[in-house]
């Protein structure tokens, strides 16, 4: 009987011991949204459409991302660049670029498919909407602003300054 | 004055030679080249209408054969053979020197419109390499001295306003 009561007392102390141990440990809770947890190296968050250093858009509107997308979340419509209105260095740019974030499964296939490294899944993950329509991110929302000191697109350029169909890429060995 | 008006007889002679008019394209092109020094746009169009074909096909023939010229060339066409035997005898270096002397690149014409330099394949005088042709006339065993003499002679000939001939 006594032995039994003693055994219970030990168990309680053991339990309390665990509790007190944790009192002195560093808390794991993060004060989101003031604080962020560090990202994994290959974390895939919301997409961004990138620009070249000169501020021109990387996207050429080829729609390979849309073709690769297993969730059918991307929609691209292309148009032709002119010297009057130039968006990207090649012949073609994306007039419409939309991603439905409700459909997107953040697999990154679009990133893999992109021949110009225009679409990149960045670290941003705070996606919340009050309406299904708001889940469709348009090109304006996805496109990053031009680098410091660079003019926004579309631009008027000297005729003949861009004569390649796609931006010159490095030797794809 | 159209080509047909200038060289009616020759053109008809060539047309009569072939069962089909189209076959006469090449001789007619030579006539045009003789007349104008090179084959002009208008000449191509006229020949196309003479032999009843599309001008595109005439242009294709002019483009294919290197001895038809669709660009205006100098009064003296200097063709330097750079094929193997001539090359072994230093034709490439010779060609470079010629170009340097005239201040042009192969395929170009001097500013005074006198000389056009071209590197060509074997012209069949390998035993006397390096060999050049000036307006299809052979000059053999060339070096820079003999070339300079030749140029001098040609300049004098030009200054004397000799009538221009392709023969």
């Amino acid at each position, binding site marked *: 009987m006594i032995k039994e009561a003693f055994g219970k007392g030990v168990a309680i102390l053991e339990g309390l011991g665990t509790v007190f141990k944790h009192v002195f440990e560093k808390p794991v809770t993060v004060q989101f949204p003031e604080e962020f947890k560090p990202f994994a190296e290959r974390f895939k968050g919301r997409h961004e459409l990138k620009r070249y250093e000169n501020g021109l858009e990387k996207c*050429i*509107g*080829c*729609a*390979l991302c*849309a*073709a690769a997308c297993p969730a059918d979340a991307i*929609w691209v*419509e*292309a*148009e*032709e660049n002119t010297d009057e209105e130039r968006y990207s260095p*090649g*012949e*073609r740019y994306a*007039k*419409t670029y*939309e991603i439905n974030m409700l459909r997107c499964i953040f697999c990154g296939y679009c990133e893999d498919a992109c*021949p*110009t490294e225009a679409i990149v899944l960045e670290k941003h993950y705070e996606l919340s909407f009050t309406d299904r329509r708001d889940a469709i991110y348009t090109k304006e929302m996805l496109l990053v602003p031009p680098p410091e000191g660079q003019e926004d697109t579309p631009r008027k350029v000297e005729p003949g300054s861009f*004569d*390649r*169909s*796609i931006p010159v*890429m490095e*030797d*794809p*060995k | 004055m159209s080509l047909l008006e200038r060289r009616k007889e020759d053109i008809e002679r060539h047309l009569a030679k072939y069962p089909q008019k189209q076959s006469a394209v090449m001789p007619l092109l030579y006539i045009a080249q003789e007349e104008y020094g090179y084959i002009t746009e208008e000449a*191509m169009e006229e020949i196309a209408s003479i032999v009843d*074909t*599309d*001008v*595109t*096909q005439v*242009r*294709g023939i*002019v*483009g*294919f054969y290197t001895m038809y010229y669709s660009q205006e060339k100098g009064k003296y066409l200097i063709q330097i053979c750079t094929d193997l035997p001539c090359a072994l005898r230093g034709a490439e270096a010779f060609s470079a020197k010629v170009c340097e002397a005239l201040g042009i690149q192969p395929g170009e014409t001097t500013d005074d419109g006198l000389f056009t330099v071209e590197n060509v394949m074997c012209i069949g005088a390998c035993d006397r390499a390096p060999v050049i042709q000036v307006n299809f006339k052979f000059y053999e065993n060339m070096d820079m001295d003999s070339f300079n003499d030749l140029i001098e002679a040609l300049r004098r000939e030009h200054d004397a306003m000799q009538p221009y001939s392709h023969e």
Partner: protein
Amino acid sequence: MADTVKITIDDIEHEVPAGMNLIDAAKLCGVDIPVFCYHPKLGHDGNCRMCLVELGLPRKNRETGEMELAWFPKLETACTQKTCEGMAIRTTTERVTDARRAVLEFLLSSHPLDCPICDKGGECPLQNLTMAHGPGTSRMYWEDRMHLGKHVALGELIFLDQERCIHCARCIRFQEKIALDPVLGFDMRGRKQQIVTSSTPGFNSIFSGNTTDICPVGALTTADFRFNARPWEMVQVATICSHCPVGCNMSFDTRTDRLAGGRTTIRRVMPRQNEAVNEIWICDKGRFARHYMEHEERLTTPLVRKGGMLVEATWEEAIREVAAQLKAAGPNIGAVAGGRLSNEDLYALQKLIRGQGSGDLSAYLPNATGGEIAARFGVGVGTNLKYLGAGDAIVVVASDLHEEAPIWWLRAAAAARRGAELIVISGRETRLDVEASQSIRCAYGAEVATLNAMLGSLPKTAVKAGESLDGMAEAIVHAKEFTADAALKAAAKTIAGAGNAVIFVGSEGLTGEASRELAQASANLLAATGHVGRANNGLIIVWPSANGQGAADMGFDPGFGPGYQPVDKPGRSYGDIFAALADDVIKVLVIAGADPVYDDLTAEESIRKTKGFIVVQEMFLTETAKLADVVLPVQSAAECEGTYTSGERRVQRFYPAVEPLGESLPAWLITQRIGEVLGQGAPSVSAAVLLAEIGRNVPQYAGITCQTLAKVEEQFPDVGGEDLYYGGTSFQNVRGLGVQWPTLAEQVDAPLSVAPAQAGEVLEPADGEMIVVPVTLVYDTEALFFKTQLLHQRVPLPHIGLNPADAGRLDMVDGDLVSLTIDDHRVAAAAYLDERVPSGVVTIPRRLQTQGAPLFATTAPVVKLEKVEA
């Protein structure tokens, strides 16, 4: 089947036709030999070297005297070989795969890596074959790639990308061998070789778009499809071209677009294979003139005239108004229907008008008639112009096929090149005359006399085949009254001796009655010589619009009811309808899919004069619609479904591709809703149900249903589908080859008869007058066609064709203003001197002059207008 031989492909023996191209033969056996330059329609060229195989041929061993297989020491190009007994090839050995890899590495040495933006990307033979046979890496120096022109315009329709071109010469060969417009060529040679065109305007051919289909890379692309969509994004919807009576099978490639506000839009038009109709080709008009369908000027709501103005109204209001007018007019009504309406539209319209007791129904343009003769002596079931060749005859009478039905022109010319006798009978020289073995010039109006003279000149033995036919004896006796010169006799003899004979009956300059007689004269000639009632024999009427045959079949002919059934009281002809309208005898006129005010000099007057009620069913506010009392917006052929009947009597089905624009409705539904108010019964549920009704009431269409029209069978050469590399990007036909309905001549014991063809009067111009002939151009300013901005540059300026000799007499030079006065209407345009116009004749292109053109050949004073100095 022809003789067959046994060949061995990869150690498996196959039986294939003798003398067939080896690539085709292998294809038949299911063995793919990759090619770039070879094309089953173009033949071999042997320049791409992609089809290298190990080849063995039987050879006699000199020692033993026995036959043995001798393998060639080097690889051979399969495309330059023809099958023969004992031939053996190997297509999968290491040598062959190595060679293919090497060829691809070479072709790609300077090919740009711009597949992501290339319009061909995704349906590109070079991409596909590289994936299948190519090297994974390249040994070439990246810096050594050629940088060439990327966006070189070969004219405003077709662009050339010089970097992508692999110099297979498919486009050049197509233009030379098939389109017969040798406007493409190679300039320079070696690495500098480039495709060039020197024609004016650039790439001057009405078949230019086809080169983009057969281009095995993205070197040739159309301006219409530039960056318009990726091939895999589009949905193909089968359709039939609505521009001419050939009835080319096409595909609308559609996509739902954000930029179009979420609407499905047509991104491009592609040919769809139908070996019996258009093979794999379409003309540029069919390919590019599609923009009217989505044009902003399309009518989207009904318009009703109120206080002199056309104002928007509801369907209910418009239909009630039309029905009330029709009811009040009783049988004093009529209808004029254009030939781009579907069979269903036409059937519903004639049912409405006949239901009210009137038979005044005319097809538009009214020049071509004779549907009932085509129903008896038309080309037999299974006709395919592809099979006409040496020993056969094709006659083209009173038609400029190149302008009126381009694909028929192409196929007739191809038959002539295969050895068929091509006889062209017309008032002026046309492009077909170049290919013709016999060109016969006859005066305008003397076409019937010419054909009669040909029939009359035939000896008794030559007309044996038709002797037993009712009326043939009289027809021959009648024909003997016409004298034939040596040329006509020779032509008649050619036809009589031909294995197969087809006559294309045109209607250039002819009135409706004259063209019926011409069809009769053609039928007499064919029936007499035994060229009716079987495949590849008979006549084809060159209708002025896509569904002219269908309109005649549905009873848009004053003499006949639907299916050429006799009517109690013949209706009025086109001219009489407008005359009756002007006199207020006809109180309601329904004009559907036609624009007579724009095309016809005299129609406007009648419409302005009448107190009657004009109802127009149209897509646009045309000149006719502007004068109407009610305008009912109809759907385009891309929005509704229906069937067209081609000139070869092939009923073909088209499918809805895009959502209807605004409130527009199918024409048949509008008509039937009006009929419903008039107590003619509830509208059909769908066009398919209406087609079934046509099948019950029009004998020729018995058994034709949506199901039978959708049937397909395997076609050779197979193009499209997985075989892009082989035949180009023309589409495989999976939605129906159509049904050709049989003529009476093909049916046993059918009541068949002929009748003498009455020759009309040849026009006799008075002093100072000339014969004025309206002619058709492929590119004109017709309301629908001219909505396509892309083709505007190809439309000629208004002009009047004139023989240089006549011009000299009138003291005129090219470009002078010339004026004609036709029935008090003055038509003035620049003179275009053309030696092909006969002396004493002026030609007026139809639908080009803003003042209109006469519908039929006529005479008129021709004067030179002094230029007014500005």
